[in-house]
């Protein structure tokens, strides 16, 4: 589904991704871990099309399409979803209104008819139940004055509504207490399916107790330096990142 080859990206003069290779197949969950500043969030941003970053080399194929050629909104319409580390507050636009606009724009891109109000509300009710989110939150301005937990839950709700093929969760655990984390993770797990792939970007292993990955990759200084099964996450939790750093230095 997603093939990243030798992806290099920089912001201004600073080179952040230095050749990423990653293959994600349908239905798989990949965790990207690594110390702060290793380039995890950059990878998530580049995949979603954030324009602050310049891709200097490499390619990303998504379902056979050249992802890097597409605008962020086109990537969304192709089925990519980025759950933000810091969801943006949009005063004056309710989640409901926002999502209806987004869904219908995506449908337009796909050559489908717009959902009418009844169809949309029906779908919304269904997904609200799935991720356990309250109507009152959805009528409010998007993310405005939401708690950290509410923002993240809202991200998962949006994901449930938009039904992406590839969901990228960028530090979804940051700023959450354990209860909020569990609720958010439950939402993500309910959305797992054989057709949907997930990339979980996280610094800590604790999120992976709830969203169990098929593969774990360690990103360090802009490269994936280690990949392994889910047990690799436990090892990192136990030993920290220093041994990886040491291993990398040694190899160099």
């Amino acid at each position, binding site marked *: 589904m997603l093939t990243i080859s030798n992806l290099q990206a920089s912001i201004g003069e600073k080179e952040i991704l230095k050749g990423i290779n990653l293959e994600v197949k349908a239905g798989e969950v990949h965790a990207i871990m690594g110390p702060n500043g290793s380039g995890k969030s950059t990878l998530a941003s580049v995949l*979603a*099309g*954030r*324009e602050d970053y310049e891709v200097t080399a490499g390619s990303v194929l998504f379902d056979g399409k050249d992802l890097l050629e597409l*605008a*962020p*909104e086109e*990537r*969304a*319409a192709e089925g990519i*979803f*980025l759950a*933000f580390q810091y*969801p*943006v507050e*949009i*005063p*004056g*636009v309710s989640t409901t209104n*926002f*999502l209806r*606009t*987004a*869904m219908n*724009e*995506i449908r337009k*891109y796909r050559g489908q008819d717009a959902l009418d109000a009844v169809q949309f509300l029906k779908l919304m009710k269904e997904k609200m139940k799935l991720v356990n989110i309250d109507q009152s939150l959805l009528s409010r*301005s998007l993310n405005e004055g939401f708690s950290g937990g509410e923002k993240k839950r809202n991200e998962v709700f*949006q994901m449930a509504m*938009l039904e992406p093929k590839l969901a990228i969760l960028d530090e979804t655990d940051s700023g959450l207490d354990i209860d909020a984390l569990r609720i958010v993770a439950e939402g993500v797990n309910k959305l797992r399916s054989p057709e949907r792939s997930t990339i979980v970007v996280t610094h800590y292993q604790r999120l992976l107790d709830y969203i169990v990955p098929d593969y774990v990759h360690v990103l360090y200084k802009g490269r994936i330096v280690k990949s392994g099964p889910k047990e690799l996450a436990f090892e990192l939790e136990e030993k920290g990142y220093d041994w990886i750093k040491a291993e990398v230095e040694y190899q160099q």
Partner: protein
Amino acid sequence: MTPNSQSYTRTSPLKDQLLAAFQVTEERINGESKSAVHQVRRAALQQFDKLGFPTIKHEEWKYANVKNLIQESFELETPSTLSADDLHTLEIPNLSGNILYFVNGRYKPEMSTIVSPASDVQILSFAEALKSQPETINNYFARQADYQENAFTALNTAFAHDGVFIRVPDGNVVEQPIILRYINDAREKKVAAQPRNLIIVGRSANVKIAESYRSLGDMAAFTNVVTEITLAREANVEHYKIQNDTDTAYHIGTTQVHQADNSHFYSATVTLNGGFVRNNLNIVLDGEYCEAYMYGLYIPNGRQFVDNHTLVDHAKPNSYSSELYKGILEEKSTGVFNGKIFVRQDAQKTNAYQSCKNVVLSPEATMNTKPQLEIFADDVKCSHGTTTGMLDDEALFYMRSRGIPRAEAQALLMYAFAQDVLTQIKIEPIREYLSTVVARKLAM
């Protein structure tokens, strides 16, 4: 203030024309010329003659250059051929209540509808009120709006013949809004209108008033309006000023508000379109425990110019004022916000807040902001803040990452930005109408 030679233009075609017109009018009104009101008009004319029109050397007119306006000459008494059918195109959907039409500054009773019983509120043309209640007019006319320093107020005062007169007796709640529609018929000739409005709201009385300005046709249309509003104790007034005018329209207006103890004044000024717009909103909080709310929204494009000057004068202790103006500037438009707050020495425990937020969507658009706080009391809470920036890129990216294309995301963000002010408008059909026009204008 002695007029500084550089701050005013002594002579101009428009000034000459107006001075001559005053003579003609004076002869025509004949018997009325000895009335107290006319003495005020004459004094105002003399002051206008002395001052002339302000130039950009004048601090208050730094950005508002009237040099094109004062080269014009206008039809001052154009009998309009405007029909009810013509008005149809200007309709605001679902509007109900008291709707008064003024064409080229003159009240049109045959087009207007007054539904509120006269026992609840007196709604007359200013011209009628001059005849039927000279006493009241004498007591209130030109008492608040200063014509010594503002040349346009002087001019309006000199030509104060028509407009609206509204008086709400003590304790009355006027349920139906009063909508004042000022239409300039500039289809065939350049026209000027100088409406003069006097609004007197009694103790514990409540009223909602909206002024809307529109021109028809491509010729220049000049509106110079003055609205004086007096709130007795515990009065509540909502006042909206709506401008959706043509690119060839000049609008200069002053809303002068005087508040007594415990009164609440609530205002919104929305400028959707207009070639040259200058709005002065002056509020004197001349009582304790007053509240004044001022909202503003302006969305100029093309070469439109919109200038909002507000002045809040806290003269007594324990009052509250709050101000939020927002602007979206496109293309080669220019915006001005000048917000002055005075807190007099006696006005202890004043709370005064002011905020002006602007989004400049084009590198060729300009926004000038100037907050001015002059505080002479020591126990007060005052704050002001202005921001002028581009669109929030992070918000745009967030929306695009959900599938909303850039242009739609931008329109949605700007619409939401504007809604902050539009939601403050409590006359629903007007709010809906403005929302529709704003959405259309922002769909770039």
